[in-house]
């Protein structure tokens, strides 16, 4: 790891001015992505601005028809939250299967969404549920937020403070984890709200998380696993690596989508 200065702001405003003041500085949330990256010298920020002591960034509340989760809320706390388990069980289930228990004790939802790893789980939930990413500057709709692998709409100095998830009528996430890393080889999040159906896919594409229009159309006609029979997504830009070819991942998308639909129907 290269040397860096360490700052511990107590408020979002202080964090923002620290980011502004120190060129090439980075926010530190759970560190479960950033620290390994810095250890490999793939990142060398001049300063780390630790969000760990910023007041009011962690917590979960139900606000009307939305579940609002603070950026510094750990994966384990989303997984075990009674509010999330009751109103958005698909999200609790997703959080419970990120990495391993130690990673879940430190990793945060804000860090995961800011990082936008093409194989991360939360981006699929945010996109399928039509979440709103709330920052220190503005509110960003999930449809505008994810802009390709490791790329988001976040601007320099922008800090995610909360994420607001509208409550669906039915939702589920089905993940095919890479047996070694536990990241998704393919993960499909399906959400139904009224007659609107959204399907988001992570792990598969070189362009990061995306909405699967053909699957959405099929499920819109009838929300049933059978509707997905023979329906597939264009996989020309899919990831091909030692873990699986683009063809394989392409097939997995439909398989995981079917499983997610069955799960959403409680089957």
């Amino acid at each position: 790891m290269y040397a860096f200065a360490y700052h511990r702001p107590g408020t979002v405003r202080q964090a923002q001015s620290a980011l502004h003041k120190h060129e090439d500085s980075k926010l530190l949330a759970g560190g479960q992505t950033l620290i390994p990256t810095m250890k490999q010298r793939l990142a060398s920020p001049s300063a780390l601005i630790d969000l760990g002591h910023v007041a009011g960034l962690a917590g979960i509340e139900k606000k009307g028809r939305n579940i609002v989760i603070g950026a510094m809320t750990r994966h384990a706390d989303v997984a075990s939250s009674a509010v999330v388990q009751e109103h958005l069980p698909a999200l609790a289930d997703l959080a419970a299967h990120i990495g391993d228990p130690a990673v879940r004790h430190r990793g945060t939802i804000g860090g995961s969404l800011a990082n936008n790893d093409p194989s991360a789980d939360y981006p699929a939930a945010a996109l399928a549920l039509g979440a709103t990413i709330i920052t220190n500057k503005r509110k960003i709709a999930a449809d505008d937020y994810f802009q390709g692998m490791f790329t988001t709409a976040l601007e320099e100095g922008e800090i995610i403070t909360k994420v607001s998830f509208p409550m669906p009528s039915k939702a589920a996430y089905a993940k095919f984890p890479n047996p070694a890393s536990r990241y998704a080889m393919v993960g499909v999040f399906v959400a139904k709200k009224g007659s609107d159906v959204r399907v988001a896919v992570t792990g598969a594409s070189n362009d990061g998380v995306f909405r699967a229009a053909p699957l959405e159309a099929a499920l819109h006609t009838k929300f049933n696993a059978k509707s997905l029979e023979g329906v597939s997504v264009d996989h020309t830009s899919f990831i091909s690596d030692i873990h699986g070819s683009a063809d394989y991942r392409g097939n997995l998308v439909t398989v995981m989508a079917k499983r997610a639909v069955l799960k959403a129907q409680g089957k």
Partner: protein
Amino acid sequence: MVSVSMTVNGKAVSAKIDPRTLLVQFLRENLLLTGTHVGCDTSQCGACVVHVDGLAVKSCTTLAVACDGSTVTTIEGLAHDGALHPMQEAFREHHGLQCGFCTPGMIMTAVDLVNRKGHTLDEHTIREELEGNICRCTGYHNIVKSVAAGAQAMAGHK
């Protein structure tokens, strides 16, 4: 240099450290608590698991300075008055270790698991929960047995 203070195995400690210092380095090199191991140094193996404020974390993936004000427990903090902790005793009894390199992390993960999920643990749960801990010797079978037995034994402990 930045200053950190924390409570490690019940003892207050303070030091001035380079902000780069990982929690595992601080424990092993500053405090000479070498029971916590570094297996991979890439967040995969779990040999470095300790408890920070009561929760299992990978100390190779945590900055010491981020633990300022925290309470840390390492494998050295489990035994009391010369008597092994029930989870340690269970690993010995059920041959849950061979070379022992992964064992401190396995035991700290297992104790955290019992704290969260109670004393009656089925094999599936134990295997899922040990996701982040790698053992190159045992084939896991006896580790799973040890954790189940240790979890039961912890019910009568404290």
